[in-house]
């Protein structure tokens, strides 16, 4: 083992070469997320793409309210923190005055699909050329595990103590499917990051999305089916397993809309 030190300054052990290290655009500071939380993985992937495509200088991010409210502490790009649900409106404002910049939002399911439903739909419907990163963990992580619009039927949260019951709390909202129906949506995909294979695919999707933004042809919308070990009251491994077995049947992975196709 090496002693602990800043990663940038590390050198490879003798006879070895570096094959992977965290992107330099991801600030080298501990993240506040709970152990095993998907947020960290997606943060890293975004920043890998930003680093690899050399767009750090022209990228502007929008952090919403939710566990990712502190995203700006980790993502080394200019950022604005948006009121709960309004990230895409804030991003619209930024993009409209800087059409040549790369603008992305990073939003949870409560943020994007509950309080922010109107902004989400209208931003995509206008076809704003931004990237929307949507972390669907089926719960309000930040505020302590309340029901989200995407919470599964029967799922216990702090506001569905008897499990989500449709007659009271309605159905899980598949907002990404709605989004895919909007003409302003350019690229819509649903990914996950709980296994190595999923991470690789997810990164490809992010690469595509950031590249597509340059086309200026509409919104790139990426859902990440994510875990929330704390909110779900599971260990990270249990959570990923539960995600695979329960979330994916409801939120099947894959591309919903791809430029050139459909």
């Amino acid at each position, binding site marked *: 083992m090496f002693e602990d030190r800043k990663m940038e300054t590390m050198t490879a052990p003798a006879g070895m070469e570096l094959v992977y290290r965290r992107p330099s655009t991801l600030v080298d500071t501990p993240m*506040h*997320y*709970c152990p095993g939380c998907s947020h960290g993985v997606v943060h890293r992937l975004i920043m890998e793409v930003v680093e690899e495509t050399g767009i750090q200088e022209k990228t502007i991010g929008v952090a919403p309210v939710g*566990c990712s*409210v502190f995203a700006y502490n980790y993502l080394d790009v200019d950022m604005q923190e948006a009121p709960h649900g309004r990230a895409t409106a804030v991003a619209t404002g930024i993009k409209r005055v800087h059409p040549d910049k790369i603008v992305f939002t990073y939003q949870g399911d409560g943020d994007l699909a509950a309080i922010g439903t109107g902004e989400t739909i209208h931003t995509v419907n206008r076809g704003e050329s931004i990237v929307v990163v949507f972390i669907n963990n089926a719960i309000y992580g*930040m505020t302590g595990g309340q029901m989200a619009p995407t919470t599964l039927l029967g799922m216990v949260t702090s506001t569905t103590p008897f499990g989500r019951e449709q007659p009271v709390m309605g159905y899980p909202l598949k907002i990404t499917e709605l989004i895919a129906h909007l003409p302003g949506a350019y690229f819509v995909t649903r990914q996950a990051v709980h296994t190595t294979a999923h991470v690789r695919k997810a990164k490809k999707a992010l690469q595509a999305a950031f590249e597509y933004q340059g086309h200026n042809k509409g919104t790139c919308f990426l859902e990440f089916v994510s875990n929330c070990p*704390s909110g779900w009251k599971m260990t990270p491994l249990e959570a990923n397993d539960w995600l695979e077995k329960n979330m994916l049947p409801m939120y099947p992975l894959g591309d919903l809309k791809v430029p050139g196709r459909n």
Partner: protein
Amino acid sequence: MQRSHEIIFAGFGGQGILSMGQILGYAAMIEGKEVSWMPSYGPEMRGGTANCIVIISPGRISSPIITQFDSAVALNQPSVEKFEKRLKSNGLMMYEESTVITPPTREDLRILSIPAVSEAIAMGKKQVANMIMLGAFLSVQPLVRKESVMDALSKVLPERHHHLLPLNEQALDVGKGLVSRIEAGVAH
């Protein structure tokens, strides 16, 4: 008890920090004292830490949030570091032995290291470490009677967990015993 006593319980989430404070508070209420219990809340819990402030007083309590304490009961290293500074002179710093690497150093404090986790493991139930700590704490600061604590426990614990009451009582006793042994120089 002439004046109010202000305690911080602190540690990681999952160690039973909040209920430790709550049971103490309930016991004090049963004894007719004024009590306030104030948890840390919000995203800082996400960092894995949890703490609560308990104030027990013969009269009305003003602020439930204070920054200087009479006693601290710490169940991890960050809590020792954080709250050592915030103890009043001659205050009590009681910490769980196994979870703390660097012990507190202030000279004007009464410092007690309690091997609650190992004792709890010995008792066959790691979860009662917090009650061992509470027992130890109460033996040093006899703010409430053990009967009141047991009373409080039976109110706070849901009926279906009442079979655990004897175990908890035992843990309180173990904690008390630890202190006497430490003070008698037996342990450590």
